[in-house]
Structures are given as C-alpha cells and as structure tokens.
C-alpha cells in the first residue's frame, strides 16, 4: 500500500475549516488526497459532486460527459457558463474545477459511459459516482463497481425529489438489485430545479469524502428518498437479492471494501 501523501502548507491553509471536523483531521485529508473518483456525468448532479470534491481536496477527478453545452443546461449545471454554449461541456467543467483548486488532478473525456469504455474510464477509480440520466450508463457503472469491488454512490432526482444510496459491492444491494433493467417509460428530460440537483450532488460528495477518509456512516444498505417540496426525508432499508444478475450470491470476485484499510 502506497504511503499517504503529505499535506503542504497550502493544503493546511486551504482546508483549514474542514480539518477541524471531528473524525476527519489531517489523516482524513491525506486519505482524501490519495483518492481517485470517477464521475459520470458532470451535469447538475455530477457537476456538483465534482465541484464539492475539488473544493475539499480530492486527489484525482476522472470525469466523463459527451456533448456541447446547451442553453437549457444552465438552470442546473453549475460548472458551466453562458459563454460556453455550443462548446464541449467537459471543457467548461475542467476550466472551472482548475480555477477552483489547481492542486486537484482533473482528467476529463468528452464521452459517455457505455459497455465498451466503462473499464477504461472507471477502471482505476477508488470510488464511482453515478449521476447520469440514462439507465444503461448507470447499470454499466454498477457492473464495473461490482466487478472491481469498489464503492459506487448512486444519485438521482426528479422534480423536487432526490434519491441516493452508497453501494458497497459484496455487502449491500447494488443498483441492479433495486432496478434490474432500464425502465420502459423513462424520459431523460424531466422537470427539475438546479437547487435540487445541487442538493443531491452535495450529499453524494459527502458520501465520497466519508468513504475516502474512513469516518462517519455511509448510506450503505439504505436508500435516502427526500422530497424538497414537502421537506420530508425517508430512509428505506434495502437488501441484496440472491438472484441479482450482477451481484447475486455467491459473491462474484469481490475483494470486499474497507475504506479505512484500502486508502
């Protein structure tokens, strides 16, 4: 296991307020600095995750998102700017993240996850964040997470509602346990506010930080469903399915996961 990176004086100053957090401290910051996170995509949800992780000092962000910025992206995609309309989203995102924190390594590709590239894109990440609007992409990332035994934070939204769970392969339900196939009536364009996307993205970022630093209690084995219209927060117990096509028992080649030991 590689030794944890040291903190610089700049790190100690930049992250001073979070270094005061109970259970985190310099050790947690060093663990976070040693962590690589893959995020697909970097729109309203994934862009917020990327921004919060960059601000917090994650070691490396690997980002995937195809296509050019459109005017109707700007109500929620906080890494983008009006001047970037018609240009690749990923370029705006990388520029913004490097402006925010030049000490974070940002690798970006203008492609979306599919069966042929998921291993190349997400294959060396310590944590995967699933924030894509298409279920096929989410299910590909889920398979990759289970195959490699790395955790995946899955986040979703609709109108003023959000859902989030942290999947620990071999221990908790995977995405396929919950929804084994693409829903037949999903429309990838749906009603939502940017503040809703940022809410679930910020919670996802905290999940990643806890996993990386090895403190707190991740949202594993539980699905958080919250409704910002009525301000109701519900936690639902979720369990692995023995007949799951992806993680079903007996366990596939999952090494198990312990954030505090691995990083």
């Amino acid at each position, binding site marked *: 296991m590689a030794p944890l990176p040291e903190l610089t004086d700049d790190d100690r100053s930049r992250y001073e307020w979070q270094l005061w957090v109970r259970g985190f401290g310099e050790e947690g910051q060093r663990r976070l600095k040693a962590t690589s996170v893959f995020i697909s*995509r970097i*729109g*309203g*949800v*994934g862009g917020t995750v990327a921004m919060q992780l960059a601000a917090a000092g994650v070691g490396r962000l690997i980002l995937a998102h195809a296509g050019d910025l459109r005017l109707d992206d700007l109500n*929620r995609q906080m890494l983008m700017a009006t001047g970037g309309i018609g240009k690749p989203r990923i370029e705006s995102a990388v520029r913004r993240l490097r402006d925010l924190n030049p000490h974070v390594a940002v690798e970006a590709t203008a492609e979306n996850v599919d069966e042929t590239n998921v291993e190349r894109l997400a294959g060396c990440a310590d944590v995967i964040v*699933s*924030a*894509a*609007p*298409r*279920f096929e992409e*989410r299910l590909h990332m889920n398979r990759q997470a289970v195959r490699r035994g790395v955790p995946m934070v899955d*986040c*979703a*939204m*609709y*109108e003023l*509602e959000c*859902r989030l769970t942290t999947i620990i392969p071999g221990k908790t*339900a995977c995405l396929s*346990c*919950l*929804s*084994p*196939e*693409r*829903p*037949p*009536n*999903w429309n*990838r*364009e*749906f*009603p*939502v506010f940017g503040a809703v*996307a940022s809410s679930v993205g910020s919670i996802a970022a905290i999940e990643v930080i806890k996993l990386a630093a090895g403190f707190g209690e991740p949202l594993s084995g539980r*699905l958080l*469903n919250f*409704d910002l219209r*009525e301000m109701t927060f*519900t*936690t*639902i*117990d*979720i*369990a692995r*399915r023995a*007949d799951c096509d992806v993680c079903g028992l007996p366990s596939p080649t999952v090494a198990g996961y312990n954030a505090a030991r691995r990083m």
Partner: protein
Amino acid sequence: MRLRVQYTAQLRTIVGCDEEEVDLPEGSNLAELLLHVASETCRDAATYLLAPGGGLQPSLLVAVNNRAISTREARAVPINSGDVVMLLPPIAGG
C-alpha cells in the same frame, strides 16, 4: 383492511396526489395491492406498475414500512392493515 399508498416522482405527478388510502381484503399480499392500484389508476400511471408483457413492472421499487421490496417477490409479501406502501419508480441524474 385499510392501508396507505404513497406515490413518488413520476407517479406522484401523474396521479396528482402524495398518497391515498386503499381498502383490500384481509390476507392480501403486496402483488395484489399493486395490481389493485394499477387497475384503479389511469393508464399512464399503470405503465409504471405493470410490465408491457404482463405481470408487475420489474424496475418499480416498492417500500413497505420503509423496507424495500422488489416486485419480483411481491406475491410472497403479506400486507397488513395500517401498512405504508411507497411506490418508487426509477429516477436518474442529469
């Protein structure tokens, strides 16, 4: 017996309310409840509960008293008076 069915996300929008009370015979199971809801609701909402080829929609997640249950095992899950059944059609990022 009487229980509460809560709608979320797209189902909530289509049905137009957060929750409803449903009356079912004693001894009913979760699959019977879902089929009952599908038969009483509008066609658009029913597509979230029923698979195109018949049976229950596999992608629908259901929570009974905050415990998630797949529609694949709904026939084996008894329901009781006072239960709260939340219907969670899949949603995604963006």
